[in-house]
């Protein structure tokens, strides 16, 4: 089979990637032992795998993962919706932007995860404070991207629509909204990974559910393999969220030249 140079490149890259994974796993399994690092610092891969099985059977790993995934999903969706909504409002109304920008800037600078203890105080050991932190942290990159996109629409394009006697609503739906989609998706990609951060911090702070809780519990027990398992599962949750965004992006932005949509 002789593909074009591009697919050959892709095949070589994938191969190298798989090889790297094998090397990494091997180093993880035998590296610590060879270097004399004790298992309670860096447990070998097999110990982590065994712990994962034990946690799945005994500690409700699936349930905790499900809780975290649900919080991430809800927080991400609500945060993106709110961020996009305010992004469009501010993008279309310079007055609103001037009025609100100092507060937005302040909130953007404030470390969002620092709100987690406050939210737990307000809402107790429920899933809501976690979702709220996720909403807050997802909100800004989405808002900023949408706002900038609406602002940066070529004024000549708007004039073209105006010359055809477009209404404000038509200008939004036919120009500003579609023009904002590529930056919106860039914001959603960032948001999908940040949502996991927000949820974990919330779970670390309080409650007895979710991967963040397992993380804290494992730490308390000095159960390093458990901590590793929790981190891996969190990465998995974030990875799936990211993947879903990319799949949606590919569908929605199908008109874009291929090289403008990066694989990651």
């Amino acid at each position, binding site marked *: 089979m002789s593909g074009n140079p591009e697919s050959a490149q892709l095949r070589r890259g994938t191969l190298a990637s798989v090889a790297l994974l094998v090397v990494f796993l091997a180093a993880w399994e035998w590296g610590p032992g060879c270097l004399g690092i004790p298992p309670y610092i860096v447990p070998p891969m097999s110990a982590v795998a065994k712990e994962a099985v034990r946690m799945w059977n005994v500690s409700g790993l699936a349930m905790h993962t499900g809780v975290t995934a649900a919080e991430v999903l809800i927080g991400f969706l609500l945060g993106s919706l709110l961020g996009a909504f305010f992004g469009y409002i501010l993008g279309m109304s310079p007055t609103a932007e001037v009025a609100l920008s100092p507060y937005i800037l302040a909130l953007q600078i404030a470390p969002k995860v620092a709100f987690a203890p406050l939210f737990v105080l307000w809402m107790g050991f429920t899933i809501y404070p976690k979702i709220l932190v996720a909403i807050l942290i997802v909100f800004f990159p989405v808002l900023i991207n949408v706002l900038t996109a609406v602002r940066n629409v*070529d004024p*000549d394009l708007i004039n073209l629509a105006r*010359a055809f006697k477009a209404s404000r609503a038509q200008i939004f739906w036919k120009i500003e909204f*579609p023009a904002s989609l590529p930056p919106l998706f860039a914001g959603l990609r960032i948001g999908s990974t940040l949502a996991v951060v927000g949820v974990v911090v919330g779970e670390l702070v309080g409650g007895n559910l979710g991967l963040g809780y397992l993380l804290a519990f494992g730490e308390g027990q000095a159960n390093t393999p458990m901590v590793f398992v929790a981190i891996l599962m969190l990465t998995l949750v974030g990875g799936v969220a990211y993947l879903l965004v990319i799949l949606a992006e590919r569908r929605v932005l199908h008109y*874009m030249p291929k090289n403008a949509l990066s694989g990651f």
Partner: protein
Amino acid sequence: MTDTIRLEYRNVTMRFAQGAGHLTAVENVSLSVRDGEVVALIGPSGCGKSTLLNIGSGLAAPSAGDAFVDGERVEGPNAHVAFMLQKDLLLPWRTVIENVMFGVEIQRVPSAERRQRAQALLDNLKLSDFAGHYPHQLSGGMRQRVALARTLAVDPTVLLLDEPFSAVDAQTRMVLQRELAQTLKSAGKTALLITHDLLEAVTLSDRVLVMSPRPGRIVDEIAVDMPGRDDPLARRRHPRTGEYVNRLMQRLGIGHDGEPVPA
């Protein structure tokens, strides 16, 4: 061509606020374009040509004076005028045919008629094979042809063209110029063609207006007395063309020593 005036500027002055004072972009410009006539407008950059286009299309109101299209005073954007710029302004998320339908869609022309009009224009401009393509898949010349189709799709009586081909390469430009000339002639459209290409002005128009540096005023008017307004390539070879271009150069103060310029 009839004697009906389709586009008219009457004592139009445009000032823009600048710092503490203001900048006069165009001053007391009066001009009129008859039905079916193509008038070229040339002048140094910054003399207010695009400003006049904005006033004609109703996107900007003049500081003094009035513009009229089809006898009606221009109060804002109206369906009688459509413009085309150097930038094609195609929407990247729309296919070629969807881009052509952009204006008629905004004007809420029924969708069957929209499609029919767009298809007819694509056929005329030899774009039908690309109806389903996206703009990024087209060359600059083709994109500009799509922009022309979009402008014609709303069936305006007056076209305002602002350096429409200045961003495409010389050979493509000649092809596009011929297509534009033929389309304008066969559809009997009235047009104001802003250009900095003197040869384009002479070969595509019935009349050339020359503007002074800012504040822009009309300082000369040359009737192009040659056959073939729908065939700019033939006009290029016409002996008079060189004379006209020469005169325009002199009027614009290019090549003061007056050496002859080959056509």
